[in-house]
């Protein structure tokens, strides 16, 4: 499933004093199997953008094409489409409502009109994806769980629909390091195992460095840059201009280069930086002979 965004513009509260242009002529294409990171300062239009990708918001101008077909066309069944393009909202734990974890996760598949066995299978599958033990948690109330667990239940609620594209809006916001790591691991596995196309909005450059195969940088409603993490993270000035950081490893690399240490510009992952430093160190040892 490919998603093509063409000259997408969105204006909130058109024709009043509260008028905001949240998206301004954004164009890009996402192919099947990509892991796209969407980064940008708060208010840069990331959430608005992702809500267009499954038709929850209508463009003020421009279009969104799913496999070449206009998402907002007249004959498109948007409700069915939304189940193929799963969107996990920011703080998704606030949308839990059922008495038990299993029932809440079953909400999506039930709306798809699946049979009882299929639904049960989907619930087990989704809980397995997010590393929640079915026997232990399926009958407990979602409101008794910890924040991180609730978040995973909510994500399972979307995964249970087996979407071919998964979009997540800041899935790790407000979680402790362990909860964050669990979600990232889970996404990594999902991407590796099922080649699900994933689009993830995040503020954490380290998360992006770990997962994304491609990055979209948003600033003030515009698409500022589109490229591999290596390209994007080496453009420190552009990132600073967009009010963004680069991953800790890229920052360290830059600081070392500033002190005259001969490292390549495009390192951004902790282990590759470690290897590069070790290599330099060994060379230095050989040169001085001690």
């Amino acid at each position, binding site marked *: 499933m490919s998603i093509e965004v063409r000259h997408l513009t969105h204006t909130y*509260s058109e024709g*009043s*004093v509260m008028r905001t242009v949240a998206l301004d002529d954004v164009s890009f294409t996402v192919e099947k199997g990509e892991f796209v990171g969407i980064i940008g300062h708060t208010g840069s239009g990331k959430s608005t953008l992702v*809500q267009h990708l*499954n038709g*929850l918001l209508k463009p003020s101008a421009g279009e969104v094409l799913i496999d070449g077909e206009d998402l907002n066309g007249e004959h498109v069944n948007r*409700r069915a489409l*939304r*189940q193929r393009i*799963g*969107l*996990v*909202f920011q703080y*998704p734990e*606030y*949308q*839990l*409502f059922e008495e038990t974890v299993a029932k809440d996760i079953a*909400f*999506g598949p039930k*709306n*798809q009109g699946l049979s009882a066995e299929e639904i049960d299978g989907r619930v087990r599958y989704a809980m397995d994806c997010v590393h929640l033990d079915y026997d232990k948690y399926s009958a407990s109330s979602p*409101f008794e769980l910890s924040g991180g667990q609730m978040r995973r239940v909510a994500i399972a*609620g*979307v995964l249970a*629909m087996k979407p071919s594209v998964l979009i997540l809006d800041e899935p790790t916001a407000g979680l402790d390091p362990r909860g964050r790591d669990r979600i990232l691991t889970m996404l990594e596995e999902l991407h590796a195992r099922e080649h699900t196309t994933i689009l993830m909005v995040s503020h954490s450059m380290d998360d992006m460095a770990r997962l994304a195969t491609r990055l979209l940088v948003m600033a003030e409603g515009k698409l500022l840059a589109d490229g591999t993490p290596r390209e994007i993270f080496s453009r420190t000035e552009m990132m600073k201009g967009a009010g963004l950081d680069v991953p800790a490893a890229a920052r360290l690399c830059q600081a070392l280069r500033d002190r005259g240490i001969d490292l390549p510009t495009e390192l951004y992952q902790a282990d590759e930086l470690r290897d590069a430093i070790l290599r330099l160190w060994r060379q230095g040892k050989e040169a001085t002979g001690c």
Partner: protein
Amino acid sequence: MLTNITMGQYYPVDSRVHRLDPRIKLILTIAFIVCVFLASNFAGYILLSAFLFAVCRLSNVPFKMLLRGLKPLRIILILTFLLNLFFTPGDDVWVSFWIIRITREAFLQALFYSLRLMFLVAGTSLLTLTTSPISLADGLEILMGPLKKIRFPAHELAMMMTIALRFIPTLLDETDKIMKAQMARGADFESGNLLSRAKAMVPLLVPLFISAFRRAGDLAMAMESRCYHGGEGRTRLRVLKITKNDMIACVIMAAFIAMLILAGRFIPF
């Protein structure tokens, strides 16, 4: 999705009307309501419309916003008009067939009653459109102050109103967000019969209530940790002061009332 609710919504621009003291604005609004009942003929209603339109222009609130506030009332308005039209007794018959009888008196009364209702709502929405909820509650609290003597909880009421008004947009936002999140899971809020639609509301209402209760708890905690202990001995950040602007507004209102009374006396239609 839920942006078409204007009743009780503040329109944040600057104008002479916005800057009026909320106490004065409240009193003037009450005066306007009295005026609506004083108007007894067409001349009076024309004066009322002109006045409302002028104040609206002066307040930099688009007239459209004011009309939008009337929209939820359209059914009541139509009902008022029809009931009065058909059931008011009169002598000067215009139309008469079967059981329907429309007289001149009935028509005029129907027209006046629905206009009156419209003016009442438009006048009061002008108050809420130009007064922020906080200053509105401030004004109300002071105006109701004398009632504290008979143990009327003026401060608590004003505080409750402030909080309620403050959280309307927040809850609307939240509703919008939860609705979209459930729609992303294939929920359907639009089709089906009454029962299935009511059932479809559960995934929306449960999270909404939980979040409202959580917010209420958080707010209570935040107020308490800033030593809120009721209205006793509480001072104000913005002390309300009557300015020249307010005096002018009162004079204009007085002149308007006089005009209205004169119009009722001396203009025959």
